[in-house]
């Protein structure tokens, strides 16, 4: 599209248009997590952020990852809220300020980190960029095979960690 004064405005395709909405939703929800005055609203916004990230995964044609994201995180957040309500005072009584006197410095470092990430992302040659992605069951199967061949140690250690957590929970909850 050609605006007066010779400014070129790219018209987004339909897919880009939807992507911009999803990305904006994710970013705004992420901001709301940090600056919300109510801990409960922060947790809700965090859920929304995870949904947005799942949406980005869908755009990358990684449906399996998107669905796992919702499955793992949203349920976990519900649990987190339950514990936050039970264990923190500030949630039950009144509102707290999410900012302390270091917010200026931390936002500066966050901004620098963002710049670094941006530079990193621009410098990396993405091997699959612009290619057509084949997304079907074969891809999920390949993922599973990687878990039990190349990444088997990481996978087993993760399993051990979860088992330890489970045993620990049983120990804590046991009737003595």
């Amino acid at each position, binding site marked *: 599209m050609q605006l007066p004064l010779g400014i070129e405005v790219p018209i987004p395709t*339909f897919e880009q248009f939807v992507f911009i909405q999803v990305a904006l939703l994710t970013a705004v929800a992420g901001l709301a997590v940090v600056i919300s005055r*109510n801990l*409960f*609203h922060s947790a*809700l916004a965090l*859920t929304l952020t995870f949904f947005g990230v799942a949406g980005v995964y869908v755009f990358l044609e990684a*449906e*399996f990852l998107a*669905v*796992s994201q*919702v*499955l793992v995180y*949203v*349920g976990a*957040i*519900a*649990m987190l*809220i*339950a514990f936050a*309500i*039970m264990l923190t005072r500030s949630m039950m009584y009144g509102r707290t300020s999410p900012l302390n006197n270091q917010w200026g410095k931390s936002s500066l470092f966050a901004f620098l980190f963002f710049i670094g990430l941006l530079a990193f992302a621009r410098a990396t040659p993405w091997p699959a960029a612009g290619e057509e992605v084949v*997304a*079907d*069951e074969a891809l*999920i199967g390949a993922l599973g095979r990687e878990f039990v061949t190349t990444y088997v140690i990481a996978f087993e250690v993760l399993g051990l960690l979860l088992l330890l957590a489970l045993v620990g929970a049983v120990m804590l909850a046991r*009737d003595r």
Partner: protein
Amino acid sequence: MQVTQWSEALSGWLMGLGLPGWAAITLVYAVGSFILINYGMLSVLLLIWITRKAISRIQDRIGPNRVGKYGLLQTAADAAKLLSKEDITPYEADKIAYNLSPVLSVFGVLMLLAVIPFAPGLTGVDLNVAALYIVALGSIGIMAALMAGWGSNNKYALLAGFRVVAQLLSYEIPLVLAVLTVVLLTGSMRFGQIVEMQSLHLGGFNLGLGWLGVVMPGALIVFFVSSLAEAELTPFDLLEAESELIAGFHIEYSGMKFAMFFLAQFLNAWILAAVAVTLFLGGWQGPGVGLPVIGPLLGLVYFMIKVYGVYVLQQWIRGTFPRIRIDQMMYFAWKVLVPLMIGLIVAQAIIQKLPTPVAVQYVLIFIANVGVMAVVAYVLQKYFREEQMRTKRSFEPTSLIGSMQVSEKGTMY
């Protein structure tokens, strides 16, 4: 059998009329989801009517019979009543959470309709991770319940919200494991393919009776029980307990917002029945679905008959079973269903790696299912017998009140 999806067929037809590709696909999906969502919303009127009639018959009553033929419009009258009720917001309620929660609970359930295969080629989206999608969206319902509990500014609603989280997250695990057995056997999470696998060809004619529920009755039963818990139906309706707890987490809701929770609950029960049918009872498979023209129509009829059959079964249980306590509920999920399912999965994974023909594997899986269930039944029976002895002993009279407190310790923690 090669079936074309309705969306491909329709968008192809529209593109033939000269529409650009993206517009055709958007239009087709918009119309499709409009029809699907409205079907979901309106079918709840029928579902509530079925529930009322079924429970009335069990309780030796006639049930609604005044509004419309056979009382069919009773639910419509109720909806009109609920619409006209005052919309109350509790004092100092969290406005965002309070108002968003009913919307989210309906949203989470309606989204599930998208992947249900109604007939050959009649699926909203034949998603390649449909089995996981069903489970993942269940967590939206959990969030909605917790938001309702917190947003109502009522400590009883909040406690009920915690109970919802506990129950739904606990029963999600046996549910996922039961789905996993099907995925393990069919090698696919795509509902279309899972249903395709359940055909049974006899001399080129599709009998459509190769149901997975026959091969693995154990997984079917676990799925059905956990879906009862996920849908908050009796005997797991201790979250709602309409007559005693006055509906738990949505105690503060009135009018249409209350109706939305109600709608979500009934539709959720129906959809879980549909998923059970898809995974274990052959979906739209039945005698003659392979026929050229009449096949898909027959498939739709078979699917609906099966789903409403399972729904009536759920209501039958609702009308006859007593409610269980919360400790029994947690106990049953973690100490009975989860070990049972893990046993089944280990057995099945080993059997599927055996160098035998597929038919032999199916027989072995069936035997493993029956065997694991028999072991669990035996252990449970033994446990209950010991439990009974202990309870009896503790009832030997010291004083009535003291004995009741002692017996409480002996229950199923």
